[in-house]
């Protein structure tokens, strides 16, 4: 929460080294306008993104999570790492929903190394979207709601 009372969401982005991280890097090099709300955790492949990471991020207090890798079918640096991503993510999406975490707080998708503007756009749009959803603050929820 910043001084002016405006809610600033905390977002964790799990991005693959070859596509989305490269895009994020390029976006930075290119000085594309991005909100600072997204903290990037680099993994080698979106297939490395263990559901635990996502849960952990929310548990730690993230208001939103992004998982992004290379475009299937063929963009993946590791041929088919992103296949595992698209097999896991729909299920996690449902799990999170069941946990009461709105769909809008979790984004997964594909951004190739050539799509720096798309990354910048995503961070802007997603931050705005999470901002509109308000704080999640899982830990505080525990503290405040339990006697």
């Amino acid at each position, binding site marked *: 929460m910043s001084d002016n009372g405006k809610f600033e969401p905390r977002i964790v982005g799990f991005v693959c080294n070859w596509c989305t991280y490269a895009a994020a890097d390029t976006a930075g090099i290119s000085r594309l306008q991005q909100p600072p709300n997204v903290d990037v955790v680099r993994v080698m492949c979106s297939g490395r993104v263990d559901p635990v990471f996502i849960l952990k991020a929310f548990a730690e207090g993230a208001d939103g999570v992004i998982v992004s890798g290379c475009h*299937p079918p063929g963009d993946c640096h590791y041929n088919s790492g992103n296949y595992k991503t698209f097999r896991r993510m729909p299920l996690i999406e449902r*799990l999170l929903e*069941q946990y009461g975490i709105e769909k809008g707080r979790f984004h997964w998708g594909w951004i190739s190394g050539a799509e720096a503007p798309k990354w910048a756009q995503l961070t802007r749009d997603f931050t705005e979207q999470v901002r509109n959803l308000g704080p999640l603050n899982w830990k505080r929820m525990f503290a405040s709601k339990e006697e």
Partner: protein
Amino acid sequence: MPDNGKLKLGLYWAASCGGCEIAIVELREKILIVDQVADILFWPVAMDFKYKDVEAMPDGHIDVCLFNGAIRTSENEHLAHLMRRKSKVLVAFGSCAYEGGIPGLANLFDRQSIFERAYLESPSTDNPQGILPQTSYQAPEGEIHIPKFYNTVKTLGQVEDVDYYLPGCPPQPHQIWAVIEAILSGNLPPKGSVVGANDKTVCDECKHTREEKRIKKFYRIHEIIPDTTQCLFDQGLICAGPATRGGCGALCPQVNMPCRGCYGPAPHQIDQGAALLSAVSSVVAADTEEEAARIVGEIADPIGTFYRFSLPSSLLHRVRLG
């Protein structure tokens, strides 16, 4: 009680089904050996003890306390603190004390909705005045206090310092005996260890033949009659075995019932449900996003499926409140 050199044993039953108590009886004739080597100072389910008797004991009087059940109410929590104080060794006994267990699935709801369901909505309830439990009540005889019902089920470890964890729903008798033997011999592992279980998962003990996994469709147990020699997971049944600590002897898979995960997370797991979810979804035989979403979309109730015993001890503990 006289100090006769016997092991002073305490047993307590918090939020649980009582199966853990039965598991102790399941020791059968060995229970006599227990009697020979131990004095049971506190076992409300079997003998008449009052809390004040325990309170009257000096701190650390009890050598070992086997505490089963999750922390559902203020009474549970109170006893957890009490037993900790009076016991040298506090053991979270069984899945509920260890990881929340089946009562932990109540974390899918909150107190309000549980009360409404239990006291108002359930078809067998006749409660025209809509009376819900109160923590205190002014009766003609005086004020009556009943324990507070918490919003969230917790594990024993989440409210008190625990020395050992003995998983299982219920813990297998041979594992209980092994722990008792270890206690008697004084050959105890480092504090905080999981005892009475293996380092490997259920698969290690499972006799079914496993292949590389490529799953086209998930089934629920009533939907197919599985091959009795092949891995149930390979056949599309969601078996928690790969993500569950072994030690039970793979009892359920042996009778073609997929493992339900009662022994809790494997040693290096961070979150049992997430680990199982990741394994299950990764081996879906889908090469397009649409197909993958369709196949995993058929899995009902993800939390209930993947966190059947471990919701309170999971990373997120419970569903979101308010």
